[in-house]
């Protein structure tokens, strides 16, 4: 991972949803971060914190309300040129949470995986298309024979492998994994995480890994952004966030994770997050130590330390 090689630059991203005539839901508000090539950037937070909205705004499943997103020198926010649109749609891919809901039950695996190729016409002959799908199936740990089956014939872990194959066949450089392992069993989660890490190494991929399961996020991520109420409240290297959290929200989130260790569980104390006196709009990005940022004011910081 090279620190200077920024692959994705999100500046001041906002996504507001209109609720009725007057209400506005600021699902994502003033979110800025950079992702470096080859790293895994983890986004954590409770449901409703806006982490999924960030992911979807980046890949343009939502139109951001405001803000600028630069992906490999292409501006992919606001009005896009045909060229940047094409680039975005091939080089950035997404893996979804529920592999059953995200695979078309009426298509066989071959057609599901090849859909991206079909849309962008990335093959010359039928045979070439099949070959590409077969090789992709093998990469994700399935086999050729699976290509002519339908999603319901697979287990949850296998379906998620199909989802990964569908994303990888476009030869992306950037993958957004939105709760990609949350619906899977513990032992299968480990398989999928190992697979994702292996592919990342082989193909120099960059991941945004969105999840609420903090133990997996800390395992897979190089850097982590902690989201609350539409804002990133703390961001830094995975170790720093876990070992020296600053923001009280991060602290309360970490204190709530149960550890698979009975001795530790007997002494674990949960802290509640009290938002009184903390106004995210007044907060600024403060760099505590190198690459470790907190949203807050100088006064608050003294209180938190």
């Amino acid at each position, binding site marked *: 991972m090279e620190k200077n090689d920024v692959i994705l630059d999100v500046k001041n991203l906002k996504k507001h949803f209109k609720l009725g005539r007057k209400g506005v839901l600021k699902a994502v508000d003033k979110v800025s971060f950079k992702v470096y090539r080859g790293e895994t950037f983890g986004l954590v937070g409770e449901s409703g914190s806006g982490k999924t909205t960030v992911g979807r705004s980046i890949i343009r499943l939502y139109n951001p309300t405001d803000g600028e997103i630069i992906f490999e020198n292409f501006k992919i926010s606001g009005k896009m040129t045909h060229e940047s649109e094409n680039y975005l749609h091939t080089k950035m891919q997404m893996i979804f949470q529920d592999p059953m809901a995200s695979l078309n039950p009426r298509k066989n695996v071959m057609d599901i995986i090849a859909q991206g190729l079909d849309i962008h016409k990335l093959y010359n002959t039928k045979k070439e298309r099949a070959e590409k799908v077969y090789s992709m199936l093998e990469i994700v740990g399935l086999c050729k024979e699976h290509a002519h089956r339908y999603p319901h014939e697979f287990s949850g872990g296998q379906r998620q492998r199909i989802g990964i194959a569908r994303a990888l066949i476009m030869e992306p450089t950037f993958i957004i994994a939105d709760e990609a392992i949350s619906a899977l069993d*513990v*032992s299968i989660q480990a398989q999928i995480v190992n697979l994702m890490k292996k592919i990342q190494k082989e193909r120099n991929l960059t991941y945004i890994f969105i999840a609420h399961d903090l*133990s997996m996020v800390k395992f897979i991520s190089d850097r982590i952004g902690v989201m609350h109420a539409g804002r990133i409240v703390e961001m830094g290297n995975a170790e720093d966030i876990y070992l020296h959290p600053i923001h009280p929200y991060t602290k309360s989130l970490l204190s709530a994770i*149960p550890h698979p260790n009975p*001795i*530790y569980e007997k002494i674990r104390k*949960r802290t509640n997050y009290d938002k009184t006196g903390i106004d995210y709009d007044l907060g600024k990005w403060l760099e505590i130590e190198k690459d470790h940022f907190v949203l807050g004011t100088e006064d608050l910081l003294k209180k938190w330390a």
Partner: protein
Amino acid sequence: MENILEVSNLNVSFKTHNGKIKAIRGVDFELHKGETFAIVGESGSGKSVTAKVIMGILSKNGNIDKGKVIYKGNDLTKLNKKELVKIRGKEISMIFQDPMTSLNPTLTIGYQILECLIEHQNFKKREAKLKVLELLELVGIDQPQKRYKQYPHQLSGGMRQRVVIAISLACNPKILIADEPTTALDVTIQSQIIELIKDLQIKIDLSIIFITHDLGIVANVADRIAVMYAGKIVEYGTTDEIFYDPKHPYTWGLLASVPDMDDRGQELYSINGTPPNLLYPPKGDAFAVRNEFALNIDLEEQPPFFKISDTHFAATWLLHDEAPKTEKPSSLQKRIQVMKGEEYNGKK
């Protein structure tokens, strides 16, 4: 210790288009009075089916082939519908994973709690209302007067689960079955609900069967643990025995596949393959094909339980006298040492 519930040699199968699925293949356990007994396992291992048998709410295509569930001298599997209704909710009650689907969206939460008080305990309406408000307060819902009149959609997920707990406790049950009660909730809410359950257990002397796949939660709540795999219990023991001295290779795999800060950058230990298809349960040990330590006999014959201590049993041939000495994977050994050694002080 006094047993409040005994399950012996339970066998359950489901009729499907493709044949009979043998979902539970010989499960034995007993629940001690006042304890929390956790059943862990992956989806399809039979943990929820076990709970449903105890509650008598097995779906129509399910059949109890063999076995007994003894509660207060009665075999619950033999009772008719009328007799079951007396026990269900009153003596044994259950909370489910998704609080939204277990509440009726068209009724106020007050009414839904009221309902079971009037049904089971012959409360007058006015007394019942007071009791409902008391219950809402017990499960930590603020402004019970206001909440009483609200509908489920007006409450957050955590609040809804509290309401479900209030309903399940309305008739002073002796046993509470909690089937993944926090899986659908956020971590912060999850720990609140777990604290609530633990708190209530002390207050009203409950015995709890806690079903989950999350080993972190198990470490927190359980007194004893049973690990289930492919319709069988493969190991059971006290919480410390399971976490610090596991004997079954499946338990090893489960514990080792939970990530830890220290193994960052390394490959996560994972169990290969997938669980067996219970339409055609294997002849030998169901875990054998995924087990890197499997012996030849594992494919031929199902292992019996081997006793490790008075409270700790595991069903694996590795514990047989003639089996080669096998150690748990080194990564797990290291982890256990770390877990026991330091109390994570300053490490968190």
